[in-house]
């Protein structure tokens, strides 16, 4: 197929498939790349992201793990120091809490402490759970914990293309990269380049343009923010929307430049608001674009309590596009009636589908 033709026929995948494709391509290209995970070789293949890999690459390169997260994270670090390039996957962020010591003390620091001699090329994939009442220990979006640690890189894709591209970028990186995949982003569909093109881990992507407000979102909340931005645009309010993508190292130049123009900032991320991702964005942008700010920057994040299981409680827990609209509308000084109109319309659309599942095809338990 000639290049032009290939480009003209976009290939639509969901992010889970894109991750699997990227993993397979990275493994074909470099025999040092291998996968470790609880369930990596099982019939469900970590939400479909590793399905089929063991058939192609064998159990030496797609390794089933014991339920021993700290141990096999250390094993991965040792292998990485010896030149291998492991990809680790945990089916929930929470399971990696057991491996914090290895990640924070060893993986993050060994390059630095060795004066740059050691390299720990490690990709750690963590999945954020959501929905179907899975409760407080299977739903945390703890990127702020990792993003605080010098020596780690931390990225969160929000699209199928980024899910593949950032994974490939992470595999190429010579240090440890934490890739946080929101479970609902696995369902995100879009054009994915069939070639294995690594995306550099170098900052946000602008998704919408406008002069009224700068909006910075992460991961799944980018999808909610897009919905909000489009609804607002229809009402004549245009925002610069940036998907943050890479939380550490944090490149904010484009966002600062945007705020210098818009004078306004709203952040929307998947974690708890307090001491969360939005706080850093607000603090840094405020320091750098203070004189341009025309309104107080606002943050949207999870409230300060664990995830409740019951639907009626989870409903209030997860902010959605109507809330984003309301916040932006407020920051830009839209008339209350205009805000309310959009909020009600979006809320009605959203209420038509169950709030605890990502997709109509989804039927519990996870």
């Amino acid at each position: 197929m000639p290049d032009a033709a290939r480009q003209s026929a976009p290939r639509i995948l969901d992010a889970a498939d894109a991750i699997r494709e990227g993993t397979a391509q990275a493994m074909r290209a470099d025999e040092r790349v291998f996968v470790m995970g609880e369930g990596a070789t099982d019939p469900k293949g970590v939400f479909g992201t590793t399905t089929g890999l063991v058939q192609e690459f064998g159990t030496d390169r797609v390794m089933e793990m014991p339920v021993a997260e700290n141990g096999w994270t250390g094993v991965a670090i040792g292998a990485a120091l010896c030149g291998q390039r492991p990809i680790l996957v945990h089916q929930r962020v929470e399971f990696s809490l057991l491996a914090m010591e290895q990640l924070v003390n060893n993986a993050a620091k060994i390059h630095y402490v060795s004066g740059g001699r050691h390299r720990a090329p490690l990709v750690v994939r963590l999945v954020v759970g959501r929905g179907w009442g899975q409760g407080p220990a299977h739903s945390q979006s703890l990127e702020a914990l990792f993003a605080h640690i010098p020596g780690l890189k931390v990225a969160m894709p929000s699209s199928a293309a980024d899910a593949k591209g950032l994974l490939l970028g992470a595999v190429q990186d010579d240090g440890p990269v934490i890739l946080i995949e929101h479970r609902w982003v696995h369902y995100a569909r879009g054009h994915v380049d069939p070639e294995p093109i690594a995306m550099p881990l170098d900052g946000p992507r602008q998704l919408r343009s406008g002069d009224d407000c700068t909006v910075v979102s992460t991961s799944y909340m980018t999808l909610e923010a897009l919905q909000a931005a489009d609804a607002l645009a229809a009402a004549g309010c245009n925002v610069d929307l940036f998907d943050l993508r890479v939380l550490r190292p944090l490149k904010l130049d484009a966002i600062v430049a945007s705020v210098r123009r818009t004078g306004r900032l709203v952040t929307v991320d998947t974690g708890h608001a307090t001491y969360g991702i939005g706080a850093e964005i607000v603090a840094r942008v405020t320091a750098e674009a203070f004189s341009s700010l025309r309104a107080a920057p606002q943050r949207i994040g999870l409230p300060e309590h664990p995830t409740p299981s019951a639907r009626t409680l989870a409903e209030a827990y997860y902010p959605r596009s109507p809330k984003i609209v309301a916040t932006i509308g407020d920051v830009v000084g839209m008339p209350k009636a205009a805000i309310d109109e959009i909020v009600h319309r979006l809320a009605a659309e959203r209420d038509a589908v169950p709030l605890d599942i990502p997709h109509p095809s989804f039927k519990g338990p996870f």
Partner: protein
Amino acid sequence: MTDTTTTTLSVVTDEPTRLELFRSMLRIRRIEEEIARRYGEQRMRCPVHLSVGQEAAAVGTCSALRPTDQIVSTHRCHGHYLAKGGDLRAMIAELYGKATGCCGGRGGSMHLFDPAAGVLASVPIVGSNVPIGVGAALTAKQRRRPDVAVAFFGDGAFEEGVVHEAANFAGCHRLPMIFVLENNLYSVYTPVDQRQPARAGEQPMAGFAQTHGLAAEHADGNDVVAVHEAMGRAVVRARRGDGPSLLVVDTYRFLEHCGASDDDHLGYRPVGELATWRDRCPVAGTRAALRDAGLLDVATELAMESAIVREIDEAFAAADAAPYPAAHTAMEAVHA
């Protein structure tokens, strides 16, 4: 110095107890079957990990305990909770996410607890409950209570370092603690031989017991009386200050890992393995044994069944009728 081989302590199971063991297993089986039957309605919107096939482990162990003894369970906690006397209504309501659930709807199926019954907590993170159980045993020792604590865990949890840490702690302080390892041969869809080395010997887990200063018991998880008696010995030792025990129960999960269906079609278990274990079903086996011994006639069993069905229907009806927790309460009780 701990003797890690099974002591010759003899515990015998009388006839009423054997009947009660059966009834308790049958009740758990029927409750989980009803959950499975209704799960497709999508009104229990939380993950469920059913223990159909593993009832003898839950019942054989918990029947040897008192209400003041504390158990800690896992993601697969229904059986333990019920066997220990946990409130059925509070459990079903919790699965429905109702305000009347044991967690007020906040936890779902993996967080069952009941203070009145000595179900201290269930924890959805694998292995994470085990040291918590040891904390209950430590409390019994510190507060000079005559209680025993029990931690249930699976063959997957056995791989978690924290389980070894917890066992070492209990062994070092000779706590009134019993570690019940339910070996159902799988962690999710991964067989144990892909996750652990093969171990020789009659008592493959004796090394773990020796390492951590535990006495070792082992029982066929389809023989509820054997489980009950092995547990009974461990409880006697714990209560009289002879320190902790490991009890390994060989068992099998009939239904899917998470959810309410069968998952044998996924092909992760050898063909015929499930059938072999189903043939040794602990409920059916116990029924047959009781029948053979003349301890269970059809009328008695029918009465049992109908009482159980009534209780289950009531619990589901109550759950159905109960209110959901109000949205505004979500912010409450973050700090004690």
